[in-house]
């Protein structure tokens, strides 16, 4: 840490805050709503994260070549699994975005305070081993920054995934109206190779980060796996992140035509 400078969290502020109100009124109805909001944001986040992992395996069928991909896609469409799923994910996506966004401070100034504090806590002790204590805590503290990146990746997902979802929903709608199939390897490959790989690459990184950190956060919030302790939970989160990120990079490389489908031999002959 560059300690020659004033920590950033305090640089902007001249004087710490003054008095706090002594009396405080709580509205039970508002409190009740908060619980529902919290459950809604957590449950939709969980559902979306699990869906994204399933989604990875479905798209991953491209590793077995166009034949495998088409087989999976056509099955899902013929049995009317794909169509309602697209609609359900769209709803989950919107509900999650609205519910989760309520935690993000509205003012730029507030977000700056959060970010600066997060940076200081994250910088503390780096390159100075004397500060590290060998207990269950994070020193330097990383999690405030993780949350800030949770918000940032969420915002990017909101924009990019909306595009992806609308594209797919319109394909499904068209196919339902006119007959035929919405998802087809030839069209998908052409799209990705035509430049959409850039969008999907950014989306991949953001979604994998957001999903694994989000699941870690859920575990922390509700005490799942509390016996493992934060370090172990954090390690699990990182393993999941790199696992799915690695898988995603391979799948995207095949979709973009940079890599031949490595499992194509499975469906040969």
């Amino acid at each position, binding site marked *: *840490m560059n*300690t*020659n400078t*004033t*920590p*950033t*969290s*305090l640089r902007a*502020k*001249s*004087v*710490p*805050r*003054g*008095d*706090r*109100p*002594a*009396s*405080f009124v*709580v*509205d*039970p109805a*508002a*409190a*009740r709503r*908060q*619980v529902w*909001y*919290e*459950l809604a944001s957590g449950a939709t986040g969980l559902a979306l994260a699990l869906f994204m992992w399933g989604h990875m395996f479905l798209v991953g069928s491209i590793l077995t070549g166009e034949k495998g991909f088409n087989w999976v896609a056509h099955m899902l469409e013929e049995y009317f699994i794909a169509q309602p799923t697209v609609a359900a994910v769209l709803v989950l996506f919107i509900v999650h975005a609205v519910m989760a966004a309520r*935690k993000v401070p509205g003012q730029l100034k*507030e977000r700056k*305070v*959060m970010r600066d*504090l*997060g940076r*200081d*806590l994250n*910088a*503390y*002790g780096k390159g*100075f081993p*004397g*500060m590290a204590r060998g*207990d269950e*805590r*994070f*020193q330097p*503290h990383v*999690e*405030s920054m993780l*949350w800030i990146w949770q918000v940032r990746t969420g915002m990017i997902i909101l924009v990019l995934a909306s595009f992806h979802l609308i594209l797919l929903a319109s394909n499904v709608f068209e196919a339902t109206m006119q007959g035929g199939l919405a998802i087809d390897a030839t069209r998908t490959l052409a799209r990705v190779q035509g430049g959409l790989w850039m969008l999907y690459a950014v989306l991949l990184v953001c979604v994998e980060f957001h999903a694994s950190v989000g699941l870690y*956060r859920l575990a*922390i*919030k*509700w*005490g799942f796996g*509390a016996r493992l302790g*934060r370090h172990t939970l954090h390690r699990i989160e990182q393993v999941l992140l790199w696992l799915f990120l690695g898988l995603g990079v391979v799948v995207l490389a095949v979709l973009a035509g940079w890599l031949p489908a490595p499992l194509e031999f499975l469906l040969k002959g």
Partner: protein
Amino acid sequence: MAENIKTARILKFDIFRYNPAEPDKPPYMQRFEVEEAPYMSLFLALNQIREEQDSSLQFDFVCRSAVCGSCGMMVNGRPALGCQTLTADLPEVIALHPLPTFALIGDLSVDTGRWFRSMVDRVNGWIERETEFDRASIEAPMDNATADKIYEADRCIECGCCVAGCAVANVRPDFLGATGLNRIARFMMDPRDQRSEQSWFEVVSDSEGVFGCIGMMACDDVCPKDLPLLEVYSYVRRKAVASLFSSGEDHPARREAEKA
């Protein structure tokens, strides 16, 4: 001891200076140099500065053994107790600021007392019961596990580090903070407290309570007394959800208070 240290470091303390009684003088950072001594704590260093260099420097210490909770300060951007922090664990340049989120008294000294008083008032940080307390009778026994848990929660020294390190508390002045949730949990666990889940509910579940928290666990990482704030946090959360599905009556004592 001293022989082992070949050349003692010259520590550079950058200390936040501001006196609310002199509002015309804007806040500034002042540098003090101190020769490091073996096992020097910030408590020792600050006292040395005040004695030898600047008698106007304001900071708080009482017990110098991490019990009174009055020496919380931002050490290189992280909340910590001055008495517990050894300079040997810190780099040569040490920036000290008062804890944010509390009213400033001057320089490094802040008023945590008022904050904690208002927090305790809000959560009714005492045992509430329907029945009159009888001094003469023998107290009902409590099982060991519960007593241990309550003891853990009671170890909070009200230093305010968890509040100062919390990003939410830094932007929302009414947020209860980890120490507030810990206080609530302490009475929730106490079998002598007869408040119903419903009566907890309104204090806990509000967006200034447990659902204002976003689980970044800075509180858990900075608490100088190693309180199990993570467990406290998920416990209170689960309680809040449970109370959503229970239709317990409000506690009579509370209703009385509201009528009055």
